Every structure is written in C-alpha cells, then in structure tokens.
C-alpha cells in the first residue's frame, strides 16, 4: 500500500467528503479547553495542539450516556433500547496515547465476567481512528515508559505525520486502507516525505524526557499494599475527580435513573464516577470499605499499576500526563511512582546489610 500526502488546506475537503457518512469528531478549542467534539464547520478543527484536555474517551464513553429510556404508564413499563449504536464515527486527529487507551477500554469492557459491555464495544467497532503522531510531546508525557511511543501506529486506522505544510498518510488497518482508496484525490508520498517522517518520529521519541520504571513499580506494588508510603502519597490530595475524569483509561461509572415525572418517562444513564469520591464505595448500611483518602488514593495507583497488570498483563496507564499537569494540588503521578520505586530499594539495601 502506497503512502499518501494530505495537504493541510485539504482538511476541509476531507471533512466534507466524510461528514455525510460519519459522525466526525476532531479536537476543538473551546475557551482554552481542547476536547473532541462533533465538528460542524471544518474551520473548527484544531490540529496544531499538544493534546486535548478532555481525553477522547468522551466520544465513546461520554461523561453522561443514556443506557436506555423508558415510559411509565400506571403500572406498565416500556423500555426503549439505544437506536444509535450502528452510526459510524470518525475520530480525527487523535494522539497515539489516546488511541491506545481505546484498546485498554475495549479490553476491559469485553472481559471480566461473561457479560460484555456491548454499548461501548459496538460503538468502538463502528469507529475509525485517524491519528496524528506527536511531534512535540510535553515534558510531562511518559508514554515510552508504559509501552507507548509518540509515533505508535498500531491502534489507529490511519496514521498521519505532520510534515509542516502537509500530512503523510499511512493506512494501518484494513479499515484505514480502504478509506485511503476512497480518498483517491490524495497525492502520492515521495521518498523524502517518508524519510522526514522517520526523522520526526525519532526526534519525538528523544523529546520524551520523563522516564519511569513502571514495570519495577508493578513488581514493588504487589507487596506494598500496607506500606506507610500511602500516607505520604495521599497527604496533599483533596479528593476531587480531576485525575480520574480526565484520565483516558479510567472506565468507572455510576448508574442513575432520571425521571421526568410530569411526562411519565425516564431514562437510565451512566455518568463518570471516580474511586476518589468517598461515596463511590459506601454501602447503604453505612459501611465503607475505602473510607479514608489513603485507601482511595492507593486504589487509583494500585488499579493502574498492579490490579490491571495482574488481570490482563498490561499497564492501566498510557502515559499521557493529564493527571500530572491537571492535578489541582500537583500530586504528580511521576513523583508517586518514583517514590514507590525508591522506598523499596532502600529496604532491600537494608536487608543486604
């Protein structure tokens, strides 16, 4: 399959051609907050960005999603299933780390127990990802430490590389390749373009300055559930949901019923929820298995770096760095992981002596 070139001024053309068939999502700037929104005008697409503040998980796992709707009539109930799951979605301009998070999402929603989350999986199946390599990663990014790469291509359908005034287009999956065939007006890429893209990839990887020994932390965490380090880690945390809500791999949700009593109808919806909230685990009896901030903070780190690897042999983090630079009290994940790595080594040394 030959690689193609998409000129930057052709984005509008691409949009116009695909918008009829797909729900077209792309990064959009709304008062400084970049998030993936359904695009109405091609001018709104913003591709010259570091990364979106709201992760693109919001497209397939929105902060509020209807599970089903119902009508209540005296004693009878009628349930209406979701009708929109077959619509095709296209996410344009997604970063490699976020694309990888979709894989983790699908992996989680299709395993654990014998019931799959068909709502998510169906939508995922009907989604085409067009990603862009990260030419200028943030200093807070650490994807290379968690099985990622600023030019990781395998989770995308089409992969673009920003060459300055144009994009190099590579078809990755079959879905992507057939899409390229459809866009017959794309010009062919030259040898020099490919070379430039390789150089950019190399440069980007070098630009990731944060290195974390995540695998080491996984090992240490297996035995540090009771370690006093958690007191220290959770001290500054205020218990808000920023880290979880803006994490591309956090899947937890709450289910609530909403009734429009005057119209005798209602809907059951799911909304984002976070393990940092005290209420998250509180039982009706009043008992709360994770009653303190220490336990809740521990659960978040353990979930991503111990439970997730234990269950699926994968890290539950994609290294996007959102929780690092958006935490209100700067409770830096990188620092936390380094602390975990360090403390244990000290103890090992003691044991040797």
């Amino acid at each position, binding site marked *: 399959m030959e690689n193609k070139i998409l000129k930057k001024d052709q984005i509008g053309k691409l949009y116009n051609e695909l918008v009829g068939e797909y729900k077209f999502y792309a990064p959009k700037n709304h008062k400084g907050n970049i998030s993936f929104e359904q695009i109405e005008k091609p001018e709104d697409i913003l591709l010259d960005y570091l990364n979106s503040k709201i992760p693109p998980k919001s497209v397939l796992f929105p902060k509020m999603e209807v*599970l*089903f709707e*119902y009508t*209540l009539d005296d*004693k*009878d*109930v009628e*349930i209406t*299933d*979701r009708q929109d*799951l077959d619509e095709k979605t296209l996410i344009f301009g997604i970063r490699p780390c976020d694309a990888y998070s979709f894989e983790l999402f699908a992996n*989680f*929603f299709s395993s*654990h*127990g*014998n*019931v*799959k*989350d*068909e*709502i998510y999986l*169906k939508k995922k199946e009907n989604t085409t990802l067009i990603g862009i390599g990260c030419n200028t990663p943030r200093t807070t990014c650490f994807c290379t430490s968690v099985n990622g790469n600023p030019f990781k291509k395998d989770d995308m359908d089409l992969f673009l590389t920003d060459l300055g005034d144009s994009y190099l287009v590579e078809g990755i999956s079959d879905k992507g390749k057939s899409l390229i065939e459809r866009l017959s007006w794309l010009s062919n890429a030259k040898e020099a373009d490919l070379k430039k893209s390789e150089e950019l990839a190399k440069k980007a990887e070098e630009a990731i300055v944060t290195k974390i020994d995540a695998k080491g932390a996984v090992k240490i965490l297996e035995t540090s*559930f009771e370690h006093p380090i958690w007191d220290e880690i959770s001290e500054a945390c205020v218990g808000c949901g920023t880290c979880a809500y803006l994490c591309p791999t956090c*899947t*937890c*949700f*709450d*289910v*609530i*019923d909403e*009734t429009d*009593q005057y119209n005798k109808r*209602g809907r*059951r919806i*799911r909304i984002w*929820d976070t*393990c940092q909230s005290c209420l*998250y*685990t*509180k*039982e*009706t*009896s009043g*008992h709360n*298995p*994770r009653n303190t901030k220490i*336990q809740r903070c521990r*659960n978040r780190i*353990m*979930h991503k770096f*111990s*439970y*997730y690897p*234990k*269950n699926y042999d994968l890290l539950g983090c994609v290294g996007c760095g959102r929780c690092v630079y958006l935490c209100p009290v700067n409770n830096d994940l990188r620092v936390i992981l380094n602390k975990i790595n360090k403390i244990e080594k000290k103890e090992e040394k003691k044991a040797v002596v």
Partner: protein
Amino acid sequence: MSNPYIPYLTKVKSIVTENKVNDIKTIELEFKKEEEYKKFEYIPGQFAEISLIGKGECPIGIASSPTEEGTIKFTIKKMGTVTTGFHSSEIGDIIGVRGPCGNGWPVEDMKGKNIVVIGGGFAFSTLRSLVIYLLDEKHRKDYGDITVIYGNRDPGEVLYTDVLEEWKKRDDIKVVLTIDREAEGWTEEVGFVAPIVKKVAPSSDNAIAVVCGPPIMIKTTIAVMEELNWGPEQILNSLEARMKCGIGKCGRCNIGNKFICTDGPVFSLAELKELPDEY
C-alpha cells in the same frame, strides 16, 4: 447485539412480610415473558440487579432456588431509596431484573460432601436458596449430611418460618435455630451463633461450610471453626459491596484485582486471605 443494562421485566406475584418490625419483605416475581425466564438460569448464591424503574437498581441475592420453578424470590430489607421503593410496591407492579450475576455457591464442587450452613439474621436469603436446592429430590442424593445453624436476634426476626418448619420435619437435615437472648415461647437454642457452632461442633471431615451473616458473627464463627480444625478452603463466604452494574464494568466493587460482582460474591476463606483487607 444485546444491551447488557436492559433488565427483564417481571410482575410482582406475592409479597410476604417476614418480620414484626416490617422492614423485611420477600417479593415473588413472575417474568412477563416466559422465554426470558428460561434465559434466567441461576444457581443458589447468585444475585440479580433488581430495579424499580424510575428509582434505580440494587443488587439483591436470589432467595429462591432454581428448583422452585416459575418464579424468583428476593428478600429485601428496607434500607435506601430503591429498597424503600420495593417495600411500597404492590402486587402487579413491574420490576426489572437483570442477571443472574456472580458466581454463586459452588454446588458442583460440593457434591459428595457434608454441608454445614451457618447463617445469621437477614443474610439467610441465599442460604435458603442453597438448602432448598440441596434438599430437592434431584440433588439430595449427591450430597452428604446437611446441618443448618441459623441465628437471629429475637424470634420475631426469623425469616422463612414456613420452610424452616418443613425442614425440621425431615430426617435428612439437621436444623439448629438460635436467638441471642431468651424470649418467651422460644424452645430452641439460645446464644450467639459462634458458641452454638462450638456446641454443635460439626465435623470438618469431607465437609464444606457456608457462612453468611453480619461481619462480627462471621469473625467469631470463623475463629470457632478454626478451633474445630476447619481449613480455610472449606469455609465459604459471600461478600457484599456497593455495586452499580453487577457485570464487572462500573469498577467500584473491587477488592484488589478481583471484582465481587463477577469473581464473587462467594469466596473461600483461603481466597480472601490472599486479597487485601478492603471489604
């Protein structure tokens, strides 16, 4: 595709008030569609997410046994929004049921063994399911001796008095009932569950014990059983947690890397000792 969050619709067939203070009711549900009842294949110890459409959902252990065909039963204590809603429901009301969820009591692994069922208070519902299942003529021959020890605060709190009477009449099951403090007209044992277990002293040879009840009862009973030489893999427990989805997706019911809703709610004591103490 099938949306895993859509409940089967059922109708309330009967409501039984189980105790004097009127905060525990057993609700019998009949599926609106016969084929959905066929799909709802369960074993004792599993639970279902039952929902009052418009109020919400909550996980409740199934109190009926699969051998009691036609309907399913739930014993519900009035606690929060949804359970209070159930208490005000009437015969004929529509109730959603999603499930069955969880692993249930390992009835296959229990075959050929003596079974000791120890329950305290309101937690007896899935034990009722288990005992009825074991006593069913199709299954009784697969299991050894059955002992039931059931403790309550006072005589008015004893659930399922009708089935208990039936069991007492049979000679292939030993039923020990106890209450915490003496009360007028009570002819059975008196005392907390743990000392009664010590008194009855069920043998641990080729046996499995199922323990369900409030945390303090479980703690004391397990201490007694360890004294009586029961191994941790012989003692089974059923855990509770706040749950939303019941199918391992919403995330909140984890203990370590296990989810109570899919890997549990039944865990052996040996399994629990491996997991962090966060339940």
